[in-house]
């Protein structure tokens, strides 16, 4: 298996209880070139799980293997895109995309960065600074930056969550196009059911308190998937049903 999570648990230190367990015994196998979404209510541990795969968070117990190599710290084999583009404002677009490429020659850095900027349709903005770009454009630069490292997996944590609806749809299409060109393995965290269904080959549905996987869905519907399509609607209803109980659980706790 390409990316494998074996009995992975995560606890954070907690003042009262000593430790606060976000989830335990997560088992997951992900195949190469797959577009997999992790879907779940907020607080179920999606970001934490992704950060553990990225190597940003420690693994409390269990193991994460990428091509049979255990993951311990961040590395260029895993690219990550966050909800905030996190571009460096003191660097222009080209320099931002070059940032992770220091292992290449100067010339190759520029060629590679330009290639990926072309892929996200930002060739005209190589010399612009992040503050001169719209939120959607910034996020495209962030995607180009992550892809430029040529990672084995692209980890995306609600990458379009801060964008307006219109821009989000445009970026969905772009991401699908890039994915079909680049053949990356993508792990995509979202709390939007329609986003997960529109994009993925497979949806891992997570529940909360305690965090766990409640369903593992394959989607074989042909792309592009339209929201009004009967099969898509049926799928949405199904996932909605799965999550309803989980969301109520969160609400109840928050209202207490």
């Amino acid at each position, binding site marked *: 298996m390409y990316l494998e999570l074996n009995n992975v648990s995560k606890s954070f230190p907690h003042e009262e209880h000593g430790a606060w367990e976000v989830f335990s015994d997560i088992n997951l196998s992900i195949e190469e070139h797959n577009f997999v979404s992790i879907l779940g209510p907020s607080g179920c541990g999606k970001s934490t799980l992704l950060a553990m795969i990225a190597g940003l968070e420690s693994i409390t117990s269990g193991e994460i293997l990428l091509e049979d190599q255990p993951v311990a710290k*961040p590395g*260029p084999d895993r690219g990550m895109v966050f909800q905030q583009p*996190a571009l460096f*404002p*003191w660097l222009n677009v080209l320099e931002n995309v070059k940032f*992770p490429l220091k292992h290449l020659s100067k010339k190759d850095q520029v060629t590679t960065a330009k290639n990926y900027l072309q892929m996200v349709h930002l060739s005209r903005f190589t010399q612009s600074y992040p503050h001169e770009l719209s939120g959607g454009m910034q996020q495209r630069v962030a995607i180009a930056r992550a892809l430029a490292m040529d990672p084995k997996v692209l980890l995306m944590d609600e990458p379009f969550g801060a964008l307006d609806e219109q821009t989000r749809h445009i970026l969905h299409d772009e991401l699908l196009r890039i994915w079909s060109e680049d053949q990356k393995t993508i792990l995509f965290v979202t709390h939007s059911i329609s986003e997960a269904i529109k994009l993925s080959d497979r949806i891992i549905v997570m529940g909360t308190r305690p965090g766990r996987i409640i369903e593992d869905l394959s989607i074989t519907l042909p792309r592009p998937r339209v929201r009004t399509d009967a099969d898509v609607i049926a799928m949405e209803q199904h996932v909605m049903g799965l999550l309803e109980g989980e969301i109520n659980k969160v609400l109840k706790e928050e209202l207490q």
Partner: protein
Amino acid sequence: MKILLKRILFLVAVIALWQGVYSAGVFPEIAFPPPVDVYYALVEGFGDGTLTKALLASFKHLLYGLPISIILGTSIGVLLAKSKQADETAGMYLIALQSIPSIAWVPLSLLLFGFNEMAVIFVVVIGGVFVMALNTRTALRNVPSSFKKAARTMGVNGLELFFKVEIPASIPHFMTGIRLAWAFSWRALMAGELLSNGPGLGYSLTYAFDFARVDVVMAIILIIGVIGSTVDHLVFSKLEKTVMKRWGLL
């Protein structure tokens, strides 16, 4: 343009009021000169070079003192931001030290270094160092964690992370620190020179006072204010704004 006009009109009004107070004889002539006397004091001072010389001496003190206070303050700030131990131990005292007006350091400085320019430079350094340290500490602490996380996923950590991400990300706050260090150092400079044996603008002020030249006293107060604000406006505020804009903070 409209703003400039308003400001000029305001200045004219202030001078008119000043003239009015003088003409009404509210204060004795020896304590309160008319605007025109101050104007002539300025012309005379720059004409015979005494004010120019004093000004150059003051700038020399700053030229030594300000860079030292910036370098020293930055080092302290980095240490406090990066070492929890250091911050818990000494961080609190920094605010205490910052709250001491710089003129309070002058007697100590004179005792330590004697009546010479070293004493003045010491006061300038003390004047700027704490605010610089505080701002550097804030700058480094406020580096968005998203920058650090993103950099780490790109294989950058440790010293490389510090130099390639944390330092550049800190520059806006750091520039604020430099601007404030200038402002505090300038005030400290005047305090130091006031009690020194010269040369310097502050010393010229005491000198004019000793000879009851109230027109010169007023002229020097004007120069101090004009230079303080002009340098802030033309150099440090401008730099800070440029940086803020680029960093997307404006």
